[in-house]
């Protein structure tokens, strides 16, 4: 698995000469969350340098965006951040809608918000569950999948797919929620609130978990901005920034005004501000905020049309637009350029994981190998999106 290369020699106290090893982590390694590879230089257990290697899942999404029609590209958006496909659909749809200037029916906005927030919970469940797995706790991961499975069933009822939905379309959503769906979402929220407490008790405040994650991988606010981090990565460092509030899209301005949700921030409760624990904490707390948003939408949803009148073959007006939305992992940006034709000229995806991962290189030196795993886990990357 690891190729051996003798590297620089370093002299130690007591004249013990040691050699740094180069350890190859991945592409098939349980801690890399997919197929990332990290070339680590290690002095015994201590990591002295790390270099992430990407591209093991490069699927040419941007090239495809320049070759298929606007609506046909939607399924590809599902597949780069496959844990938060609803949010990807939303980001892409918003970008195209911005160029087209379509008015979206209110019910569609509500359903979009419900789906995006449920998907955010699902994504954070996997993020937190696999983080537990990285730290060595296997069972919480399965508990989280248990709840996620219910969520998958909910999505399946509304759009027929479990993972790659293509449900949020340009102009609205694919179809209306089936009868009884909204009340089932409400039941899910009730149950989830109880279960959420279980995760907190089982893992979040577990002494070993805290010891493993507090004071590890500290990202200072200045560093977070310099690296262009976003989402829970910056909020973990105490920067009060959430696109849903600060650059609202869809209904979020209204929801924020109604006081339906707040923005959890890392406070450095268990260690230094901006450590791995803070990031995990932000994710866990965000799940609850998402539940609140879903509840607000459930309370105020009214019947109506769910999709604007758009032609089968879209012709998007010439121009270019950038739309950034708050994906579970941070700012998911879509930059689309149109020349007025059926096909995009450029369809750029700014993946949050891609940018967030860059900071790993900086955080690793000086940590133990076990900490390196904790740091990679705390960035919560989805390789489909780092590589696209």
């Amino acid at each position, binding site marked *: 698995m690891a190729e051996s290369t003798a590297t620089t020699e370093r002299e130690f106290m007591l004249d013990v000469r040691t050699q740094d090893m180069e350890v190859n982590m991945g592409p098939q390694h349980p801690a890399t969350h997919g197929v990332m590879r990290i070339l680590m230089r290690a002095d015994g257990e201590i990591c002295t340098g790390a270099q992430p290697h990407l591209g093991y899942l490069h*699927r040419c999404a941007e090239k*495809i965006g320049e070759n298929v029609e606007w609506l046909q590209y939607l399924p590809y958006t599902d597949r780069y951040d496959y844990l938060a496909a609803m949010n990807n659909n939303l980001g892409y749809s918003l970008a195209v809608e911005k160029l087209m200037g379509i008015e979206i029916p209110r019910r569609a906005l509500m359903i979009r918000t419900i789906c995006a927030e449920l998907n955010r919970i699902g994504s954070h469940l996997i993020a937190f569950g696999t983080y537990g797995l990285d730290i060595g706790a296997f069972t919480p991961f399965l508990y989280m999948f*248990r709840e996620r499975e219910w969520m998958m069933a909910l999505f399946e009822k509304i759009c027929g797919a479990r993972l*790659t939905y293509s449900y949020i379309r340009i102009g609205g959503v694919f179809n209306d929620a089936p009868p009884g769906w909204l009340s089932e979402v409400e039941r899910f929220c009730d149950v989830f609130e109880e279960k959420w407490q279980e995760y907190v008790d089982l893992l979040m405040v577990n002494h070993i978990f805290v010891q493993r994650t507090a004071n590890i991988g500290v990202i200072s606010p200045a560093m977070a901005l310099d690296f262009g981090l976003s989402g829970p990565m910056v909020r973990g460092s105490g920067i009060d920034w959430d696109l849903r509030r600060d650059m609202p899209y869809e209904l979020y301005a209204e929801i924020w005004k109604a006081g339906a949700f707040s923005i959890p921030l890392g406070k450095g409760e268990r260690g230094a501000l901006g450590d791995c624990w803070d990031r995990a904490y932000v994710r866990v707390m965000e799940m609850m905020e998402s539940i609140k948003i879903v509840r607000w939408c459930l309370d105020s949803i009214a019947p109506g049309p769910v999709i604007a009148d758009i032609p089968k073959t879209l012709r998007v007006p010439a121009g270019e637009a950038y739309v950034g939305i708050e994906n579970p992992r941070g700012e998911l940006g879509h930059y689309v350029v149109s020349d007025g034709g059926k096909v995009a000229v450029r369809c750029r995806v700014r993946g949050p994981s891609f940018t967030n991962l860059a900071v790993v290189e900086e955080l690793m030196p000086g940590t133990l190998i076990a900490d390196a795993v904790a740091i990679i886990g705390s960035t919560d990357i989805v390789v*489909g999106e780092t590589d696209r």
Partner: protein
Amino acid sequence: MGLLEQQFEENVLTTKVDWLINWCRLQSVWPMTFGLACCAIEMMAVGCAHHDIDRFGAGAFRASPRQADLMIVAGTVNFKMAERIKRLYDQMPSPKYVIAMGACATGGGPYYKYGYTVVKGVDRVVPVDVYVAGCPPRPEALLEGLMKLQEKIQQSSVIRRPARTA
């Protein structure tokens, strides 16, 4: 097995021995912890509470290819990864099996036409035993793929000579 492998004529004894060995092998197909893309999430779902692949004895996910029997290629394979997949496959001890999970691993899937780095099917790199359709396949589909693999293992000849096909 070596010396004994496929050395015996088919009779009651060898058939029974083969049946027993095959039964043991099919009840204990250990997959490798190896997810590539979207399908990997459904593969994780198969391992988790709702679907529980461990019921079939295939729940012992091994992180090291040396201890795994089954490689579930769950997701899109690109050229950069293909060489690693080949290497992982070579590191597994035989008998080893491969399930191509999902459209991408089967034949490039949605990335067939414009995916310049995508390998159009993992069978161009390693031999595949079972193809599972779907994008991504439902967990039930992967379970069925596993059952198909078990059927295939049950029919293989271990110590008896393989039936001649003209």
